[in-house]
């Protein structure tokens, strides 16, 4: 049985990888979603379809693709990122970005539709318009980010392939559960599983709380 400190190490790495990936995904996904919702440009429809299709991207496939890029003989092999937390962060960022972008697009396109004429009647600049929409979207965007975090934390296929499940280096909750289960170390697997479950419950609770707050604030 792993000592408690090692358990903590695994949970901490899980959170570090997934939270970093989700923050990066939000930095890319929210502006991308806003762009797709608000601006008209050639290729917009294609990009929208692509983003929505990528939402269902199988994590193993992302892991495999990234593995081929990062492996020693791959085009990015010189970076020596394979089997590092950085590789895991990249993989999860790829997985989560379409989720956040797609949610954001829906959120911004509803708000834009609703407020466009009002803001133009007020002679709001483009910058003022964007800031207003972001402010109006804030609760809904947090739910999008939490949904992304849920996907990142529970995903195993990508982190297993590009992380390698190396003890003290790249072992996260999902990969540790898989390993300990296969070793027959069920008590540890179950306790890790319970922690993961608790985290996921906590995230969903936060989601629910935010959504009801949003509805109360909106009252519409």
């Amino acid at each position, binding site marked *: 049985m792993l000592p408690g400190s090692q358990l903590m190490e695994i949970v901490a790495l899980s959170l570090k990888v997934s939270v970093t990936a989700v923050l990066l995904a939000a930095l890319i996904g929210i502006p991308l979603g806003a762009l797709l919702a608000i601006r008209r440009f050639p290729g917009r429809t294609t990009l929208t379809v692509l983003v929505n299709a990528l939402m269902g991207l199988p994590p193993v496939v992302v892991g495999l693709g990234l593995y081929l890029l990062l492996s020693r003989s791959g085009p990015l092999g010189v970076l020596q990122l394979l089997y590092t937390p950085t590789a895991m962060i990249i993989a999860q960022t790829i997985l989560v970005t379409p989720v956040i972008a797609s949610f954001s697009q829906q959120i911004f396109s509803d708000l834009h539709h*609703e*407020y466009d*004429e*009002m*803001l*133009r*009647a*007020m*002679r*709001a600049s483009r910058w*003022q318009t964007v800031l*207003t929409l972001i402010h*109006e979207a804030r609760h809904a965007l947090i739910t999008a980010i939490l949904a992304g975090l849920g996907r990142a934390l529970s995903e195993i296929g990508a982190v297993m392939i590009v992380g390698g499940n190396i003890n003290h280096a790249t072992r996260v909750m999902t990969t540790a559960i898989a390993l300990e289960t296969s070793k027959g170390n069920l008590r540890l697997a179950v306790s890790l599983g319970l922690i993961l479950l608790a985290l996921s419950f906590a995230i969903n609770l936060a989601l629910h709380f935010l959504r009801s707050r949003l509805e*109360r*604030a*909106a*009252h*519409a």
Partner: protein
Amino acid sequence: MPESNILPLKPKGRQEAGAGFLISVDALGYRRGGRSLLDAVSFELSRDPGITVLLGPNGAGKSLLLRLIGGLIRPDSGTIRFSPDFRGPIGMVFQKPVLLRRSVRANLLHALAIARIPRRERTGMLARLLVAADLTHCAESPARALSGGEQQRLAMARALVGDPGLLLLDEPTASLDPAATAAFEALVCKVAGEGARILLVTHDLHQARRIADDVLFLHKGRIFEHTPATTFFRAPASGEADAYCKGTLLT
């Protein structure tokens, strides 16, 4: 001009000039889906401050016309010209109020910020706007939780931000109670008296009689008449306007 103690109005130069137009609408056309929604609409709004009431049955194109004048949509043909000395923004109140998901106070502060009112002036203006729209008691309430009439009053307060030279009001009293309607009409007359031109859509003929200086009658996307209110209500020139006032106009 009397100094306003309700609204942040600055003295305007334009009301001294007697002649000429504030807005000249010429042969305006707007088509959608093979239907001509506005057809050869022409009229002028005088640069004298005052209230023009736009009347017409449902679907006549009144809201469309307001959105065209407000610059929110483009006409397919024709022009809208503003007099060169037109100053100030155009305040709009939509038929359905569009309010931000924030408190009443935050909605008004947002409008003041968009209008680039200096920060130190905002608090005073906010207080005056809340009083003008009689919303002081619910300043902290979420705007979307207000009653329909309160929402319309908030939309009106917001339209007054930045001292508009022209106010486009689309059925602003449709869901106000008689007292709020009376207060609203007093406010509109006051704003007009301070130098703004007001174009107001209403289906309330009593209201039109009370506040209109002149009347525009729109039917099936065409202007049937534009006459001083007294003339219009004594005897409308067109049979359509007459029928509309009697409630016998078929659309």
